[in-house]
């Protein structure tokens, strides 16, 4: 299997697709209407579960199963769409929302029916100003049509949908942090259990799904679960948006069936590294995924194969790094990102990301020895598994993988930077600058 298979994005070249009129002309809202009027909640749930649709936000958990965890009862239940796409390398949800906002709204309606939710929220990152405005406009259209509000499509079902804008914090993409942020708190992750399905938003049962996951549901209801399950491979059914970025010739989103070889994505679809450059490594699933190298190019792009290779498929956001990029600044950039985005709640993540950045800075400035590399690797081990949420691990795993795959380069960098620093000190000392500046000698 090669190339793209455009199902989710089939109509994306249609002008003005973001308008209700166009979306409906192409069959839009047929599935939501069907789910609201002609299907029971159980039927909707069954179809989603039978389709094998896995969450597209990174964890890859069955969407139908997750919805089935929502307990019965009269308490208010909620659907939250996670549109806080902030993982470096990920930009698929942005495109899905801006090209086809009604598809997401329809997905929210179907998801809400499956979860028996009467209130839904789309938590969109504040930086996506344009996309949020488009969603707002689309939501208004949907309310005007009676597809949202009380008695949707003339049924007995009510659904309120609010587009909620974040204000800039990567961690709000973590589902429990998203709930806290939506409740008007600092977006810090919660202890789990309890899980959101039992006690989520406002302590009520809550289904949280990624934009792409929900966008897939209208087609499942329209064509049936078998149609969806026939695409893709094994447990990874349907099509998947893959975002490719970094040192490639044609960065962008590609809709593919999982199982496609990695090489086909990087070289076939995205054109590979620029002329004259070679692949150094790539993050297969966003910056939180441990890096893989050339030897992994022929693996099929599946959750399982990526995990087996020591990484993860995650959000299927592939960042490609070519051989012009030194590893230490890359690692420093990555660690700096996670330090900045750590919420600070738990100790290993807060202190570990900070410590890692300090060590990398020393390495870069010629203030380190190869022993520091050992300490740095151990610090990563001490972070992994000990944190409240996965953010700490999200730094520690790729940094660990870089040390593993590029230990030699790290060591060379250490030595070269030390030598450069020593030379600079000798020069400065000879020139009499050192004493004047009152600067201490090299550590």
């Amino acid at each position, binding site marked *: 299997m090669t190339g793209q298979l455009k199902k989710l994005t089939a109509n994306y070249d249609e002008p003005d697709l973001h308008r209700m009129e166009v979306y409906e002309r192409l069959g839009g809202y047929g599935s939501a209407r069907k789910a609201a009027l002609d299907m029971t909640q159980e039927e909707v749930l069954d179809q989603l579960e039978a389709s094998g649709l896995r969450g597209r936000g990174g964890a890859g958990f069955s969407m139908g199963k997750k919805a089935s965890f929502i307990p019965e009862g009269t308490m208010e239940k909620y659907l939250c769409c996670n549109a806080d796409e902030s993982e470096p390398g990920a930009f698929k949800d942005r495109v899905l929302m801006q090209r086809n906002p009604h598809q997401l709204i329809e997905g929210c309606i179907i998801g809400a029916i499956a979860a028996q939710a009467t209130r839904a929220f789309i938590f969109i990152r504040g930086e996506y100003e344009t996309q949020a405005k488009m969603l707002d406009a689309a939501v208004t259209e949907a309310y005007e049509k009676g597809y949202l509000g009380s008695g949707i499509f003339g049924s007995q079902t009510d659904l309120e949908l609010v587009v909620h804008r974040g204000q800039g914090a990567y961690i709000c993409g973590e589902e429990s942090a998203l709930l806290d942020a939506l409740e008007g708190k600092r977006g810090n992750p919660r202890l789990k259990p309890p899980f959101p399905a039992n006690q989520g938003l406002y302590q009520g049962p809550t289904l949280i799904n990624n934009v792409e996951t929900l966008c897939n549901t209208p087609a499942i209801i329209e064509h049936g679960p078998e149609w969806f399950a026939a695409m893709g491979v094994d447990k990874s059914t349907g099509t998947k948006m893959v975002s490719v970025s970094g040192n490639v010739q044609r960065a962008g989103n590609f809709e593919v069936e999982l199982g496609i070889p990695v090489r086909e994505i990087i070289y076939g679809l995205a054109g590979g590294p620029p002329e004259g450059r070679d692949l150094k490594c790539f993050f297969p699933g966003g910056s939180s995924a441990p890096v893989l190298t050339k030897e992994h190019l022929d693996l099929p792009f599946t959750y399982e194969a990526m995990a087996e290779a020591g990484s993860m498929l995650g959000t299927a956001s592939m960042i490609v790094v070519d051989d012009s990029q030194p590893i230490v600044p890359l690692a420093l950039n990555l660690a700096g990102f996670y330090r900045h985005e*750590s919420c*600070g709640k738990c100790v*290993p993540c807060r*202190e570990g990301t900070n*410590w890692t950045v300090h060590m990398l800075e020393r390495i870069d400035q010629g203030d380190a020895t190869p022993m520091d590399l050992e*300490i740095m690797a151990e610090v990563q081990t001490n972070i992994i598994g000990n944190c409240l949420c996965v953010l700490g691990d999200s730094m520690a795993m790729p940094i660990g993988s870089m040390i593993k795959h590029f230990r030699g380069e790290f060591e060379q960098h250490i030595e070269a930077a030390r030598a450069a620093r020593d030379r600079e000190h000798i020069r400065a000392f000879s020139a009499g600058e050192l004493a004047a500046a009152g600067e201490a000698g090299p*550590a």
Partner: protein
Amino acid sequence: MARPQIKEISFEIDGREVRAPEGTMLVDAAKSGDVEIPYFCYEPKLGQPVGACRMCLVEIEGMPKLQTSCSTPVKDGMVINTTSDRVKSAQNAIVEFLLINHPLDCPVCDKGGECPLQDISYGWGGGKSRFIEPKRHFRKPLELSPLVAIDRERCILCYRCVRFSQEVAEDYQLVFLERGDHTYVGTHDGRPYVGPFSGNILDLCPVGALTSTAYRFRARPWDVEEAGSLCTLCPSQCNVQLTIRDDSKVLRAFARDNPEVDDGWLCDKGRFGYQAIHSEERLRAPMVRDGSMLREAPWDHALEQAAAALTRAGAGTAALAGGATTNEEAFLLGHLMREALGSPHLDARAGGALDPQQARVLARPDLSARVSDIDHADVILVVDTELVEEAPILDLRVRKAARRNNAKVVTLTGRPSSLDPNATAAVRFAPGAAEAALSALAAELGSGRATGSRLHSRAGCEPGAIGAAAEVLRAAGDVVVLWGERISDGARGASAVDALLAVAGALGIVDRPESGLIEVPAATNARGMREAGVAPGLAPGLTDAPEAGMPAAEIAGALGAGELSALILLHEDPLATHPERRRWQTALDTAATVIAFTDFVTTALRDYATVIFPAESYAEKEGTLTHPDGRLQRVRQAIGHQGQVRPEWSVLAELAGRCGARPDVRSAPQVTQKLFATVGFLDGLTLDEIGGKGVRWQDRDAASNLPRAELPEGTLEVPPELPEGMRLGTVPSLWAGTTVEHAPSLRFLAPVQRAELAPADAHRLGVGSGDEVEVAAGGQRLRATVALRQAMQPGSVFLVSGTADNNATALTNGVPRTVEITKTAGAVNGAGPPAAAPAAPGPGAQPPPV
């Protein structure tokens, strides 16, 4: 909602089979197996665990990842390992992470020697650090408030202090600012963290990041001793631990956890009030009047003078007791008055008098609630008391019930209550109209006793407000009623209490063991004093006294009219604490003899006292107090008597002796024994039984010795119509009084007079926020600064009472009173916005707290 039933389960920890109550968090359950799991952020008093410090990770069989034992409830058959290599390496890692930015300034850190971080680093750390980067450095210590210094280098961001501020005190002033490794504890825009409970963060901090400005560098843990006692500064009677140096000096007070009383919290008055004990201005020797001067005198001379004057006055003597008078002192005062002087005129109640029968009904075990009943109540009804000013720790208790157990709160008050944001229904009545409001509530609840017409309007309530409150109450199972002594202020006091009892009857409180009433009195030991016989018409044990006596208000009148000639003031200054200040002024002016027991000479005493005996501080005292819920607790001597101060029980006994009726007591415990033997329902009680946590007398068999008293049944009196005009209400301030004035750390909290007005009234009167006004009634006037309150009932103005100067009681006269308000000067900083046209949401429209 009934108290939950808890069953025991068994589980295995580190190879040991252990039993623990089901649902206990592992970290606590482990203690049953003598296994200690280290932690920093866990503190069940603060609510749900946060799992932030990661120190308590353990291995649980069947779970792939290590789990935080602070958030994992123990289940039957669980197998836990706290010593495996995985756990140990996680513990080492966490300690290493914690220490990389923690300064190792333990030698100069106040927490040194009593620091969980020190202990845990020693016990569970790896003993080494590989961090060679520069640590964070900041200016330190910095002021966080006048009471608390913050050292941000030392802070490990454990969440305890901010959770306290946000989820216990609910003042939400202390927060985390910024994010990630930049996170720090702070306030908004550099404002100080000032709230009645701010000092608790000192107890909570597991490192030396938050230190007491008053205690910093005063001592090391090994220089001091701890002494358990009781705070006697308000009716909450919180359990405290005093830090003592050289048997003579109190250096610090902190909370001593007693879930039945205080939940382990302490207000700032209780925490820093100890400073007054060592104030230079504290009276340490007797004083005797010499012409216009009070002069220090030898004990013998002072006793002789006092005894002679009292003997002369004989049955013309009256006595007021207040403050922290112990049960024993009250008992001996009763002896002095009734046996030695033959006078029945003694009272301990600033508000209106209780009928003796009412006193007995209110004491009935089936009508009274215990403090911990608040936790599990379905509805908490707060009647005309501002808990945060009058019994602050109960305010926290109500907040806890509402926050954690979804208890509904109903406020029925004259002044907007600080609990309104937590309330399901908030009812405002006109100042002084508690009786009418309670009658109206009784009527709404279907009590056949309330028959008056137009009760709502007599109460000055919004139409429908009382109905809404009644609806919440009717649907409730267990109800706890916290009622302010204030409802009985003035001449109609007994009628107001009768209306309260009608509400209690309509709620069926006697039939529900976890429902009940708790009085919030003005004086710390009001209940104990009453039960020990300091009340007109009541002998010890709430039996009828042989002779009816005058209540406080009548005593004032009789002194002023010359019908009585002497007054004993036991820890009481009526000009500060009793209504009708003017009347008391006349009384003191006219009285031939005033004998006072006090720690500080107030203006009133300086002007009027004949003999003053120095009072003991609570740190010097031995005796018992009775909590408003009936719990007897011990005050224990922690330091030696300062100066020439003598035990007051012995002074009272000596005075009685010199006046002709020497009681047979030679030691403090002997007085206690005699009291217990005299009071029927305390029969057989011993100090040992009271122990460190106290005993509620209602829970003992002897409670049946309480003289029988039935709930009244007759028709309630019809309350009077309200006067027209701006009606004056008063609110006491926790921070008024001599303790605060003489505790250097607290002085900044001393209240200034302010007039709280509804925006509509302010608009009409042409005044705005911050303006200076004069409030006048009956020829008396006082100055105040205007504060606007959106939730204030139009037609009401509230002033602070209990202040040394400018006391609102100067304007009160025992009946609902109207006042004139005139502007004297604009706002000092001109910042006050013009009084906005009224857009007042009705009471209860306030949103819940953050």
